[in-house]
């Protein structure tokens, strides 16, 4: 029996009726490959999604409610289904969520403002040294985040000592650190889009008498828009989910949510954390849905961001 034999051929005639037509016509090797593929995909996707499902599920676990959160840990699958943890989420966690959201939005916006002109100049310009400059613009993604965090912390000390500008443990300081890592994502994804489309479109607009600004607004911008959005979304996500950089730049009352979760896991567990994390997961899902409805999800799949 070889892999190329049809499944139907290896069966006794009477058993044919038991198998659907499609399966009977399949090679045995192909069937094994199919089963192997399904097995591997199931394994991989289960592995990827298990933590997310478990966090969402355990946020409804009521088995340790009577312990009043004292060293309580949550179980999965949830027992004694409850919404109690959602009502107990402290206002400081909501504030942390708001700080994360506003910080990531501002960082992504600044990343776009800095990254789009940089990408345009780096791809469309003809000046020497563009490759080195491109590498420098992408450099922040090559530096470990802990080194970025520490370097900004030290630089803020220095700036404070030199000109008295206090950036350490301020919201502005936090945002600047995040703009630093947000910009390369926009430069990368806008650059990738620009490289794909032909400069002659812009030249045509210019030669037909459009002004530079009009050419940019009516020709270049619509073309690079998917890249801008993809870069902006990735920048937002990296900033929104970051712990390591924020850890060194935050201070009291301006902890972003991931830092609060980090502290809760590193020091004392807070059973409302899974509930808050579930709210964030649902929020991310909604964001993805909005992206899908407005521009289509595939802008994120086509080489957007640098990972």
């Amino acid at each position, binding site marked *: 029996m070889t892999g190329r034999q049809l499944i139907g051929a290896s069966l006794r005639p009477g058993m044919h009726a038991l198998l659907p037509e499609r399966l009977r016509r399949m090679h045995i090797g192909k069937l094994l490959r199919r089963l192997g593929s399904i097995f*591997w995909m199931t394994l991989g996707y289960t592995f990827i999604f298990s933590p997310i499902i*478990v966090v969402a599920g355990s946020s409804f676990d009521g088995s340790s409610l009577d312990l009043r959160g004292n060293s309580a840990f949550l179980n*999965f699958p949830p027992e004694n289904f409850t919404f109690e943890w959602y009502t107990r989420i402290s206002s400081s966690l909501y504030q942390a969520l708001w700080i994360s959201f506003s910080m990531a939005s501002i960082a992504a916006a600044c990343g776009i403002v800095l990254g789009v*002109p940089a990408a345009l100049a780096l791809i469309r310009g003809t000046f020497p040294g563009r490759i080195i400059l491109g590498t420098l613009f992408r*450099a922040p993604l090559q530096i470990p985040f802990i080194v970025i965090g520490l370097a900004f912390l030290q630089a803020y000390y220095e700036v404070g000592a030199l000109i008295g500008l206090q950036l350490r443990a301020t919201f502005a300081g936090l945002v600047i650190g995040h703009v630093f890592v947000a910009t390369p994502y926009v430069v990368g994804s806008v650059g990738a889009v620009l490289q794909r489309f032909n400069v002659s479109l812009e030249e045509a607009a210019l030669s037909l008498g459009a002004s530079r600004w009009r050419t940019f607004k009516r020709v270049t911008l619509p073309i690079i828009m998917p890249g801008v959005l993809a870069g902006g979304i990735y920048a937002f996500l990296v900033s929104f989910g970051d712990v390591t950089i924020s850890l060194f730049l935050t201070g009291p009352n301006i902890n972003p949510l991931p830092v609060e979760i980090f502290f809760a*896991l590193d020091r004392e567990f807070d059973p409302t954390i899974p509930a808050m994390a579930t709210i964030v997961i649902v929020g991310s899902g909604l964001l993805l849905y909005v992206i899908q409805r407005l521009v289509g999800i595939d802008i994120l799949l086509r080489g957007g961001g640098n990972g």
Partner: protein
Amino acid sequence: MKANWVVVLAPPFLVCMTLLFGTQYVFLQLGFFRDLGIGQVGTELELFNYIRAFTEPFFLNALRLNFVLAVAVVAITLIVAYPIAYIVARMTPKWSIVFLTAMVVSSFVSIVIKVLGIIIIFGADGPVNRFLRWTGIIEEQILVIGTKSGVIMGLTHLGIAFMVMMLFSVIQSIPRSLEEAAEIHGASRWRVFWRVVIPLSMPGVVSASLLLFNIAMGAFVSAVLLGGGKVMTLPVVIQRTILLYTEYGMAAALSGMLMLFVFAVNIVSVVAVTRMRAARFAVT
């Protein structure tokens, strides 16, 4: 035209390079000054911290552990992610979008939330331990949190979505007709996979692996939370040097060591791969 683009580039260039070189200079130069305690550093330039970093077994062990973990993460991620990327790339476009979107969804969720999930899954009373005890395979609980495998698990989670998305675009760019041609000439599916698909995707595999390696070398959150303070990788040691001893000079030297090492590994692998390809083309 020429001057025009320089004007466009100048503002973002100034901002980004000030942030890049300014912060890195202020921090890394501290590595050349001796720590005096309570966060102060000396005034004399010396290599004291770097000599410590490259000679003391504690720091060298941290670097070695860091390297071993990162290599393990890249290897496991490749084994899991490559077949998935291949399967997804050879699906009908409608389905491949669905499966890729699922990967994007998972990468939308912050690493701390995933780590929280892993801690619950492998907790003493978590589903894995309860299941294994129920089946009678184990009597006591298996420990994952606070071990190297815990850290590898967390980083693999991060890596798979990243790797599948990177490899998908690599494999998709390999024309299917090449596989069909090999098959018509009598190659088995396995042979096609090993002799056509994998060699053609090698450049993409190498660059994706290096990117993931760099991420894994600098990983901090999983190393701290899933390592439970017992897995001392270099980023964890750097944080402790600041947090417990406030030795900014030493932390800067260790950061320098980490970045030098990562940089060296990248250069060496790129050169090695280029040589290997050149040698292969010379033979055929």
